[in-house]
């Protein structure tokens, strides 16, 4: 019971080439910036796009293998999809929306509607059976879409940004419900999102996609602790540097500058992360223990939560997080000339 896929899709100016394996009963979140190929991957798995090369195998059944001339159209794949914006059929009420898949697969209308009603109960929509999609709230519509995708017992469930269309308050509730429903679905679960919170709450594993390629896989905690892409680092709010480790913990950064870490690694290409709150800011060159210090100029100042985030142009550029009081005491403004310092022990290094 699992998905084993090598997906290669060639579009006009874009190629997706990704390998993934998902065990049944696990939820994998595919994250990545816009245009990374997340939706293309989902469409290929659902059969809405044919592979140029590769192979998709689900529970031992080949769904797509252009080399062998195999391609199952979407209607023949045991795959349920929850689309972005839900895509409920506007002319059908909630029950008929959920019954649609069963009817398409040959279940009689009355029986399909009975089973659909049970599904609506299961997602907590008892009493809303005859509501048309436009009469449902965003969260309710999302639950109907989930019930619709699950009603015909798929072996794989694909969710495309299922929470993107919701406002911030309902999103938390729906996310919690979704987590509960995902746990009860025994098949392969793949979730596309650009929200790291979704990935952290809903997923067992995360796949980071960028420019059509998988650049990292791992648990949400691993991905956050050891990001391998600017995009993830920015999302999780850490500083990511790539460079080459030399002897004695010196790291020559790819984009100029050198930093020193306490951990010694085998010489070679490495990533280094620094949490913004570990970056100290001074008006003049500091004396003392930090082994990393360099001058810079404040590029932007923006409040984030109860802190202030300062983007510093320097070699290398870095983001620091200070308290509003500190910013005021130092009289920091955009274009202020400053020094930054980072203790070697605050730099975490891992092989690239």
């Amino acid at each position, binding site marked *: 019971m699992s998905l084993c896929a090598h997906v290669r899709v060639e579009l006009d100016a874009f190629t997706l080439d990704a390998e993934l394996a998902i065990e049944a009963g696990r939820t994998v979140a595919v994250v990545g910036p816009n245009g990374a190929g997340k939706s293309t991957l989902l469409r290929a798995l*659902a*059969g*809405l796009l044919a592979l140029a090369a590769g192979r998709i195998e689900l529970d031992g059944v080949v769904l797509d293998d252009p080399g062998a001339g195999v391609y199952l*159209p*979407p*209607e*023949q*794949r045991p*795959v*349920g*999809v929850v*689309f972005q*914006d839900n*895509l409920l*059929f*506007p*002319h059908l009420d909630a029950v008929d929306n959920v019954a*649609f*898949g069963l009817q*398409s*697969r040959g279940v009689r209308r009355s029986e399909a509607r009975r089973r659909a009603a049970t599904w609506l109960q299961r997602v907590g929509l008892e009493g809303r059976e005859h509501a048309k999609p436009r009469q449902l709230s965003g969260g309710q519509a999302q639950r109907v879409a989930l019930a*619709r*995708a699950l009603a*015909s017992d798929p072996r794989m469930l694909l969710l495309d940004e299922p929470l993107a269309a919701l406002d911030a308050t309902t999103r938390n509730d729906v996310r919690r419900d979704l987590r509960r429903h995902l746990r009860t679905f025994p098949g392969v679960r793949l979730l596309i999102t650009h929200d790291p919170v979704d990935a952290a709450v809903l997923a067992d594993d995360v796949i980071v996609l960028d420019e059509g390629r998988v650049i990292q896989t791992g648990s949400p905690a691993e991905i956050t602790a050891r990001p391998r892409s600017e995009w993830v680092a920015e999302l999780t709010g850490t500083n990511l540097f790539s460079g080459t480790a030399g002897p004695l913990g010196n790291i020559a950064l790819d984009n100029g500058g050198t930093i020193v870490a306490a951990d010694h690694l085998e010489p070679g290409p490495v990533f280094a992360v620094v949490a913004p709150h570990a970056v100290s800011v001074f008006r003049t060159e500091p004396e003392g223990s930090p082994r990393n210090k360099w001058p810079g100029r404040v590029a932007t100042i923006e409040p984030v939560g109860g802190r202030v985030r300062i983007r510093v142009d320097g070699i290398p550029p870095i983001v620091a997080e200070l308290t509003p009081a500190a910013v005021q005491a130092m009289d920091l403004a955009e274009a202020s000339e400053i020094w930054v310092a980072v203790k070697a022990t605050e730099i975490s290094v891992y092989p690239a």
Partner: protein
Amino acid sequence: MARARRRNAATDVPERLAIIPIAIATVAVLLFAVPLAGLLWRAPWSSAWDVLSTDAARDALRLSLITSLSATAIAIVLGVPLAWVQARLDYPGKRVVRALTTLPMVLPPVVGGVALLLALGRRGIVGSQLDKVGINLPFTTAGAVVAEAFVAMPFLVITLEAAFRSSDRRLEEAARTLGARRFTVFRRVTLPLVAPSLLAGIVLCWARALGEFGATITFAGNLQGTTQTLPLFVYIKLEGSNPDSAIVLSLVLLGISLVVLLALRDRWLTAR
């Protein structure tokens, strides 16, 4: 509505200066209103029923219903797939096909009738072949149906093509992932989504077929009970012995047009 009016009042300060366009607009409205008033004014209301019970009038009414409904049925059977192809597929020569299938809307109907006669007449390119297998269209009821379909189908196709084009195709993809085959998708998703436009197209097409005159008289002739539809009947009677029956049947056609207009009021009578 209230908000719109208020905004109007606030912005249209020089409204009182608009005398000239208002005067011209009034003339335009009169151009539409006066003929209708004339028709209603001259209507022989007392003898209306007698006129409607004559054989010739009954024949024309019956024939008009049969031919216009048949033409509409043909337009649906051929026009729905045509509209779908035009909206959804890309192929070389698509623009030519669009021009070709829209042409009857702007072509003088008489020219359409002449063209039909030359192609499908006994000596026509296609007609001579049809003749060999015993099919004869000119001057038959079937010919009247063909003439009406030729003129009226574009109205259905154009309306429906726009609807197919603007309907959300992602819903069709969703249906396919739910196990629906292409035709099921079309029947249960695509068609219901364009149903209002389909209905409007059908009504429009039928109204046009019902009023068809030029192509019908040229291609199918004017034989009572066979090809003499209502408009032909009206024309002949007005020229000849019994203008009263022409007026009464004109009123019948006018009444049908009003019903059509009411049926489509949400589309056309509501200013956006």
